């Protein structure tokens, strides 16, 4: 393929509010090559492609496309340079036809700016044919399936004379046949000299389609190899890294079952979920994005309905009860998305702390503001929430402190089972340790925590057991003391250790 690179990246670094997410990344791409990027959740893949597509500004580093250096990259400049990104969410106008979408912004215009439809559809037909796609250019995009819409996006990229197509988890919502079609399409792109940056956590696909693979871990590039030089074991090892010395949590005082899920199922989302949570235990859930982990914990928290199965708290069925009653029984949900569903951002620290426990701070219908103040000051102190005062609106707090306010809300209520989705995501190191300390303290008091986390270190350090999910099922439940990060990750991405 020659020495010339279509894309050359050097020393790219990026930090978010002091947290380094990419350091000194180097990456290159040859014409007609498929170069895969793999890594655990949070390794920096998304950040890197967002920098390439112009969505994020890099802190430092060099990007060269076709030997031209780009010191500033906006989405517009990136597109003009020939970089097109195809995200998991479609970027099409649903009510327009396939042809209009492909040629959008460059429609052939007649006198007075009228649309020359014939020409437009002729163009579109040609492009589709070029890619061996059997799609009607006059079909309305919203009537197409997800895979066909993706094909339209690729056709659109080709029309825009894309030199580099970035695909972020392109197979996430595709069936097996559709994946085959996509791979044929990628082969067509390669033939035309278009290069593809392919992001996926499905290792099988990477071995099928990629020419080269780069592994990111914790914002660093740890490996770059031709695909024929490696196998899955090497890849998984590179993704996980060296085994760290892990301070396993001791199993003390874990006794009776507090909460139990039996054969829980929701059609098409998850099935056959069996789980027992003991008093004083932290159970972690591992799984890639889309494994159904969030859906399961929401169902276990009584927020979303299930089609089948039993949810028993102390032997009592919680299904069919209102959320108010479930909370009263002692189950709470601390969501991943603090701002959209976790907090009332226009309310004060005190208001958020007490919102689930209004009866505690009132006499009859009347609020006792003095009691509220006292109570929230206690939580601000014990959780070390950094706020100007308890009256400060929570939207002004940092991520870690907002997370603590969410926990304070449920501590205030008095809860037995804490179900937490990504409890330390987007939180700085200090606050993270603080939150871990709080979690340990809770289990010391005999409470139970079920935690979803994308962070393997967090899972290994905090939980007694790790439940690994894939494709809406529990594939394995591991004792943290007897497992390795590598084993957990292998189950999560669908490859058991030792088998080739």
């Amino acid at each position, binding site marked *: 393929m020659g020495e010339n690179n279509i894309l050359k990246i050097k020393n790219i670094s990026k930090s978010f509010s002091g947290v380094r997410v990419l350091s000194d990344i180097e990456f290159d791409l040859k014409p007609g090559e498929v170069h895969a990027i793999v890594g655990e959740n949070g390794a920096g893949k998304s950040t890197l492609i967002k920098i390439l597509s112009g969505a994020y500004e890099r802190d430092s580093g060099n990007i060269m496309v076709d030997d031209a250096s780009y010191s500033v990259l906006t989405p517009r400049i990136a597109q003009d340079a020939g970089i097109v990104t195809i995200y998991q969410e479609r970027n099409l106008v649903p009510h327009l036809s396939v042809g209009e979408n492909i040629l959008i912004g460059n429609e052939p215009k007649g006198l007075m700016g009228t649309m020359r439809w014939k020409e437009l559809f002729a163009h579109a037909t040609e492009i589709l044919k070029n890619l061996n796609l059997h799609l009607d250019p006059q079909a309305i995009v919203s009537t197409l399936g997800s895979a066909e819409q993706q094909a339209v996006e690729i056709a659109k990229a080709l029309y825009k004379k894309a030199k580099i197509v970035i695909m972020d988890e392109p197979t996430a919502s595709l069936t097996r046949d559709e994946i085959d079609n996509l791979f044929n399409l990628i082969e067509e792109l390669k033939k035309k000299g278009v290069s593809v940056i392919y992001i996926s956590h499905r290792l099988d696909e990477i071995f099928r389609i990629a020419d080269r693979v780069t592994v990111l871990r914790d914002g660093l590039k740890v490996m770059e190899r031709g695909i024929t030089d490696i196998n899955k074991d090497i890849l998984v090892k590179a993704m996980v890294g060296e085994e760290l010395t892990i301070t396993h949590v001791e199993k003390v005082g874990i006794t009776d079952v507090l909460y139990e899920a039996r054969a829980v199922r929701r059609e098409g989302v998850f099935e056959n979920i069996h789980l027992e949570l003991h008093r004083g235990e932290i159970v972690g859930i591992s799984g890639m994005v889309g494994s159904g982990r969030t859906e399961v914990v929401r169902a276990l928290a009584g927020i979303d309905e299930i089609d089948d199965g039993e949810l028993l708290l102390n032997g009592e069925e919680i299904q069919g009860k209102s959320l*108010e009653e479930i909370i009263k029984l002692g189950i709470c949900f601390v969501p991943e998305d603090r701002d959209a569903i976790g*907090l*009332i951002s226009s*309310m004060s620290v005190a*208001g958020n702390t007490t919102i689930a426990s*209004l009866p505690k701070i*009132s006499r009859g219908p009347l*609020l006792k503001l003095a009691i509220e103040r006292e109570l929230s000051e206690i939580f601000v102190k014990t959780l070390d929430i950094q706020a100007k005062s308890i009256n400060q609106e929570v939207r002004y707090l940092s991520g870690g402190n907002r997370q603590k306010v969410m926990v304070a809300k449920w501590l205030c209520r008095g809860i037995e089972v804490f179900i937490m989705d990504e409890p330390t995501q987007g939180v700085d190191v200090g606050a993270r340790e603080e939150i871990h300390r709080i979690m340990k303290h809770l289990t010391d008091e005999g409470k139970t925590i079920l935690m979803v986390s994308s962070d393997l270190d967090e899972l290994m350090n905090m939980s007694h057991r790790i439940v690994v999910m894939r494709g809406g099922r529990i594939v394995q439940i591991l004792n943290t003391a007897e497992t390795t990060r590598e084993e957990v990750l292998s189950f999560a991405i669908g490859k058991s250790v030792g088998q080739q």
Partner: protein
Amino acid sequence: MPSENQSASSKVFRSIINIQQWGIIIVLILLVIILGISSPVFLSARNIRNILQQVSTLGILSMGMTVLMISGGIDLSVGSSISVVAVIVGKLLKAGVPAGYPIIITEGYPITDLGDKFEWIGGATVGKVPFIVILFFTVMLICFFILKYTRLGRKAYAIGGNEYTTYLAGINVRMYKVIFYMFCGFLTGLASLVLSSRISSAIPTMGAGFELQSIGAVVIGGTPLTGGRGSVWGTLTGVLLLGIIANGLNLLHVEASWQYVVTGVVIIIAVILHEHRAQ
């Protein structure tokens, strides 16, 4: 001890400043100064009483709207509701007849001369203060109390701030939303009685435009359309501002249709000020 008292009082003072919208207060003061200079009667006791009397209907209505809008709701039917209530009450007072829509009931004609007892509401005074002004301020204080010191009020802020989070906290959001609409409806009814009593008749179109005026007053007062924040004090400034503009333009013999233009401009300025403040 004295220093503690002082800090407490300055705290109260600061919180009042915070609650009230500085920008709007400045506009209000400027307006009073300008009108005071250009019209000799503007600052007379009689005119001030007149203004307060005139804004009472809008005021009572807007207090209900404030509570509703803080909870994230909005009621566009208050104008017609005022007419319906007034006409039904009028008919009932005249001799009990089945209900219906105001214009159908009255065939477009006003019902007049509703009787002394009913007119008492609109005409009575306590000392020199009109009864309906006292009623307005009472309603305002009750709303203030509800919003600040009751669970119901706290839930209004919570639901308006983030409905889903509030639901996840185990609060029956749907039921409380109905309650807030009912509360607004109740005060709409009261406002209607005050208005028809004051003009001693029930006119089928008497409520027209009240929905936008009351929403305007609430928004001028700093409650965003999205809810979650706001106070009765803010709404009070909004109501006064609209009332003073109407009164002032009357005194200056400005054509009635211009009042809409001026009101509109004031609302736009208010929204810009709030946006500015929010950033």
